[in-house]
């Protein structure tokens, strides 16, 4: 029995952390955030050198065939440095979708390219969680119509995997005719989302026809967002503790005041169990099907709640400086804010848990 990371996983974590510490300092994040397309080629290159794009691509298609827990470890480290790189959709959801529901041709066409960094696929499944602003996609005769919002890892995608109103998945290439793509700008300048508009747009269906793979993508996406929130929260707690150990007021380090100490202790006390919850949720996705969806939801909603608290409390511990752009704390604050809402906010996700347990009918 071993509840925790294996030696290999600890080495993976440390290798990713070391690499990102070198390639992704806050100044670089700042530079990128000023651009229309805020994604960093430099950090993406480093991520590719580590083999991260191929983590979830099966070995027979040129990948590493690793687990969602491995991907969650990487997600945590990316968020820890607010890395402005595609990951959730392009390196996690797209390979899972293609591996689990792609035709042999689709797998052969895309998976090796994903693994070696030649191709990136964005994923648009938000409307299967909840459709906002009248969005939604219908499909007929290998054609899509309608609008998909919050397409994840939107910038620079070579293709899009899109869920229709029935939860069926379709693949649309970026050069398809009658496809309109619109960049959406969120608070979080470290990840990219966009809007896809279809009007009888050519699409290839994935072989999944009952929405089961879409449900798997929601689970995986929520676990990775929870892991992201965990990494950003960890960074914010460490920054609060460091700052309060340096800043003096009233002739004392502010960290020696109980008012400040207790804020930090509350953050740590609520944050620490999240780590175990995220690990378990990722492991359940990999190996315990009966727990996978419930724990993906719990991990997502719980980290959403805890890290909203951490984000504001850490900012408060930094006092006025925390509120400035100078300190840059807001990059983590905003990353956590995005993680909370993407693929369903806490209330939405909890309602799904109620349905999964048969407490209410499916929403």
């Amino acid at each position, binding site marked *: 029995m071993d509840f*925790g990371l294996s030696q290999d996983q600890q080495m993976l974590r440390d290798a990713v952390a070391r690499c990102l510490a070198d390639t992704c300092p806050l100044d670089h994040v700042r530079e990128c955030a000023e651009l229309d397309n805020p994604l960093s080629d430099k950090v993406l290159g480093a991520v590719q050198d580590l083999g991260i794009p191929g983590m979830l691509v099966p070995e027979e298609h040129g990948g590493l065939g690793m687990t969602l827990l491995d991907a969650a470890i990487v997600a945590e480290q990316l968020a820890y440095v607010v890395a402005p790189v595609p990951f959730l959709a392009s390196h996690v959801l797209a390979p899972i979708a293609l591996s689990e529901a792609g035709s042999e041709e689709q797998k052969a066409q895309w998976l090796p390219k994903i693994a070696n960094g030649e191709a990136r696929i964005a994923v648009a499944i938000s409307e299967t969680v909840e459709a906002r602003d009248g969005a939604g996609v219908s499909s007929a005769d290998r054609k899509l119509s309608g609008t998909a919002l919050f397409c994840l890892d939107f910038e620079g995608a070579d293709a899009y995997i899109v869920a229709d109103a029935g939860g069926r998945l379709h693949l649309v290439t970026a050069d398809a005719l009658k496809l309109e793509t619109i960049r959406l700008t969120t608070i979080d300048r470290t990840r990219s989302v966009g809007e896809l508009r279809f009007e009888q747009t050519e699409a290839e269906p994935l072989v999944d026809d009952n929405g089961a793979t879409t449900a798997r993508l929601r689970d995986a996406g929520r676990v990775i967002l929870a892991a992201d929130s965990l990494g950003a929260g960890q960074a914010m707690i460490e920054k609060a503790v460091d700052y309060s150990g340096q800043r003096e007021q*009233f002739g004392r380090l502010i960290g020696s005041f*109980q008012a400040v100490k207790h804020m930090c202790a509350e953050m740590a*006390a609520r944050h*620490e169990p999240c780590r175990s919850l995220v690990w378990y949720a990722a492991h359940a996705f990999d*190996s315990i099907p009966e727990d996978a969806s419930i*724990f993906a939801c719990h991990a997502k909603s719980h980290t959403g709640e805890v890290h909203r608290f951490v984000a504001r409390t850490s900012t408060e511990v930094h006092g006025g400086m925390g509120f400035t752009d100078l300190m840059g704390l807001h990059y983590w604050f905003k990353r956590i804010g995005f993680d909370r809402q993407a693929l369903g906010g806490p209330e939405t996700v909890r309602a799904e848990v109620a349905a999964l347990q048969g407490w209410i009918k499916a929403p």
Partner: protein
Amino acid sequence: MDLDYGPEYDTFRQQVRDFIEAHSHLAPPSATRAARPSPEAVQWQKLLIENGYTARTIPAEYGGYGAEPDILKSRIISEEFSRAGVPGGLTNQGISMLVPTLLELGTEEQKQRWIEPTLKGEIVWCQGYSEPGAGSDLASLKTSARVEDGNFVINGQKIWTSTAKQADMIFCLVRTEPDAPKHRGISYLIFSMDTPGIEVRPLKTMTGHAEFNETFFTDVRVPVDQIVGARGQGWLVANATLGHERGMLGDPGALENRLQVLITLMQEERIGQARAIDNPVLRDRLLALQAEVSAMKCNGMRILSNSLKGESGGMAKLIVKLQSCEIAHQISALAIDAMGEIGTLYHGSPREREGGAWQWNYMFQLGLIIGGGTAQIQKNIIAERGLEMPREPKLAKVSDAAKATADIAHHKQGSA
């Protein structure tokens, strides 16, 4: 991640299940939490010790089962008894706190004399630590013990002595070296509650019940050899057991059980034509608590796994008391809200649910948030030991009048 216990443990789990199935008819009702175990509870305890299902790692020469420590087997035992709804071994302060202390720091004679009857439930203990003036700052305790004719002569008062009424014996912190620094002037004594000069008064709490007592000592004479550890080392001796108490207060299995009872309540309790769980706001709160409890369960698995590897629990363990007590309290609060006005019924009222247990829990759990190291003390521990934040500057000694005045002046200046 490997959550399998392995074939050896699967076999062991099956043995435990078989035992429970064959013997559960002998178990005392689990609801009775009387301080002094009933004769059938004593018999049950004996059976459990003989089979290694309680007092498992305590050496056989002291009345235990004498098995090698095996965290997974201990965990399996507690999981299986909990799952079957059958009471496991006795858990009282003697067994949870005194026995581990004696095993670690007692003399051979003390171990021989006290451990076995305590394990068997023949001797009931109470704990004399807190005083009216020494709560969070326990080391400032004032109950004194001077030496006279080969006896300690004890004077003073203890508070929060649960089970003092029923107890045969007390383990008690007293000040034996009044001139030593406060942490080095304390001794850990054990003596009979029948000793002349001890008076126990029930302490009624906000629940309406007297779950605790105040215990007064007037010239109580205790032979000088009834000390655990050396004179002046009582603080170290007591700290060996405080860790055990914090462990007791934060069992994720207990949270899961409470949550399950709450889920059942909300599926049965009706508001008009609907069940409480059909109310989306109440249901959302329930789900948020379920997520919290799930996180604590995973955190518990991580702590277990760390201890299997011989690692310390680290932050995962430091936060358990604070979080568990808080979540338990929120579970009770939601139960009361789900019942609404019905939730206020108490004192054996008609229409009361479950004997008023939810209200009692809601109030008593507030006591648990305060007791065993208040939430604020827990936060100091998390901040100072876990996050290595700077300690509070020490206040000036009262006798150092000049410095104190300077400090006050400085403080005024600072806040102006």
